[in-house]
């Protein structure tokens, strides 16, 4: 495992140079901030847009802080996931395609430390982008709407982070099977979409699903007791471990002939 620190360091140095450590946090911050800001200025925006009959009163009930932050979470679920997949799709493939994997694999680097180093470095990038932006959104929400307690905020962050562990492992695992960026992004998003759709259509049967954690992160903002939390957490942790093992197994099957 001693090689892992070296691998992680290199990942970060690369992500700094290619700007992932800049654009992903900034994109997440804009995504998160835009929700409370647009909701707050919605009435004025509608007015500017015009088209309302003379004398009509715009009467949108002001949402609660919890509702605003729930909106932020659903932004992450769609756009946030997409941005992350775009940032993560090439981390393994570029090394396989440019052959640097050959230098790594003739050395005492195990598939375990290789895959774990990728997982950890992506997860940290993702978690930091997510947390900073969510805290910024929380700050604006508290100023513009009603106060949301820090306990609720961190409860929600905690649950959502477990989901992110799964998400990173999924994209990595898919990356070990395919050789082009677009197919990796496509297959990852396809799997996520199927999971989301299944939860939508047959919620009773999907109580175990990792996607459940997304709605539970929303619940955590609104109430202190969350129903059926342990089942999806357990399943998500197990599936994450399984996906990482799958990636390690798959990496051992690669051939290095350069074709």
């Amino acid at each position, binding site marked *: 495992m001693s090689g892992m620190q070296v691998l992680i360091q290199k990942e970060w140095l*690369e992500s700094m140079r290619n700007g992932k450590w800049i654009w992903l946090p900034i994109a997440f911050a804009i995504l998160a901030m835009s929700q409370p800001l647009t909701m707050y200025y919605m009435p004025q925006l509608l007015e500017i847009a015009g088209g309302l009959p003379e004398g009509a009163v715009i009467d949108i009930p002001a949402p609660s802080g919890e509702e605003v932050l729930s909106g932020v979470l659903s932004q992450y679920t769609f756009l946030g996931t997409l941005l992350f997949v775009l940032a993560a799709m090439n981390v393994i493939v570029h090394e396989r395609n*440019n052959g640097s*994997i*050959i230098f790594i694999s003739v050395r*005492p680097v195990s598939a375990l430390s290789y895959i774990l180093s990728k997982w950890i470095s992506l997860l940290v990038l993702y978690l930091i982008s997510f947390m900073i932006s969510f805290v910024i959104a929380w700050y604006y929400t508290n100023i513009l709407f009603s106060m949301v307690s820090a306990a609720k905020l961190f409860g929600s962050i905690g649950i959502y982070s477990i989901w992110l562990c799964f998400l990173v492992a999924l994209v990595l695992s898919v990356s070990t099977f395919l050789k082009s960026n677009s197919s990796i992004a496509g297959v990852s998003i396809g799997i996520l979409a199927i999971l989301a759709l299944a939860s939508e259509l047959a919620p009773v049967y999907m109580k175990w699903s990792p996607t459940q954690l997304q709605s539970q992160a929303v619940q955590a903002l609104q109430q202190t007791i969350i129903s059926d939390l342990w089942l999806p957490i357990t399943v998500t942790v197990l599936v994450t471990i399984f996906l990482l093992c799958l990636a390690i197994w798959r990496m051992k099957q690669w051939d290095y*002939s350069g074709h």
Partner: protein
Amino acid sequence: MLELVDISKRFKKTEAVKSLNMFIEQGEIIGLLGPNGAGKSTAISILSTLIEPTQGDVRFFKKSVIKKPSPLRKAIGVVPQEIALYPQLSAEENLLFFGRIYRLKGSELKKRVNEILEQIGLTEKRKALVESFSGGMKRRLNIGVAMLHRPQILIMDEPTVGIDPQSRSYILETVKRLNKENQMTVVYTSHYMEEVDYLCDRIYIMDQGNLIASGTKEEIKQILSSENTISIEADHWNNAFITHLKEHESINNVHVEEKEITLITPKEVNLFTEIISMTEEYDIALRSLHVKSPTLEDVFLHLTGRALRD
């Protein structure tokens, strides 16, 4: 020291390497020559235990290394055909990263990186990002990375493809020097016969997965000792002339390039005057005509009927 014993490798339909035998002794520079698709990269990947052969054995100091590759892997440095570097890191950062992967640390690592930068002539460019490098500089760094852990055997897969002539001769000189001064054993793959001719002690020539010739340079050129190579130069040709040459009973091989035709003929027949009168007959402005001593290229032409770089 290192041997391939009756190696075959099949990828689904293609048989990339067919029962290849090869041995490498300490301190030699071995050349592996052949056109694209000959199976050179496959042979080298098997030699460096990156892929397993379908059949046969790889032995290092008489011990099979297919199932236990680590003693061999410690002893070799592999320079892959592709540029295996991180473009967004500097030359020095690339070397430091791979050095750490090779378990070098602290001042020893720094010292080694400095030595390598010196050897590959990139000391001045150490802080520049690899993406800003020319093809030749990338190639040199690629070689530097493979040498970090002081391998006994350096295995190079077409290290001079697609680079400028200066970088190319720099690389050739470096390889020669490493071999002379550090007694490094080198396996050098190429489809340029001049390189192999210049560098190597012993040569293996492959074509379509088969080993078609092997031995020292002199031994291989002996294959053509009973033949002459005649080169005809002119500005352009006409088809009738070429057909006539091809149908001539004492000409074994005709290879046509834009301004040069190469013929292989038996030593005992003298075609000089005949060729000159033929060029007159077909109205060809002859520029030169001479008999050459055989090159490895001619050996390949003789054995396969094709040029190396078709």
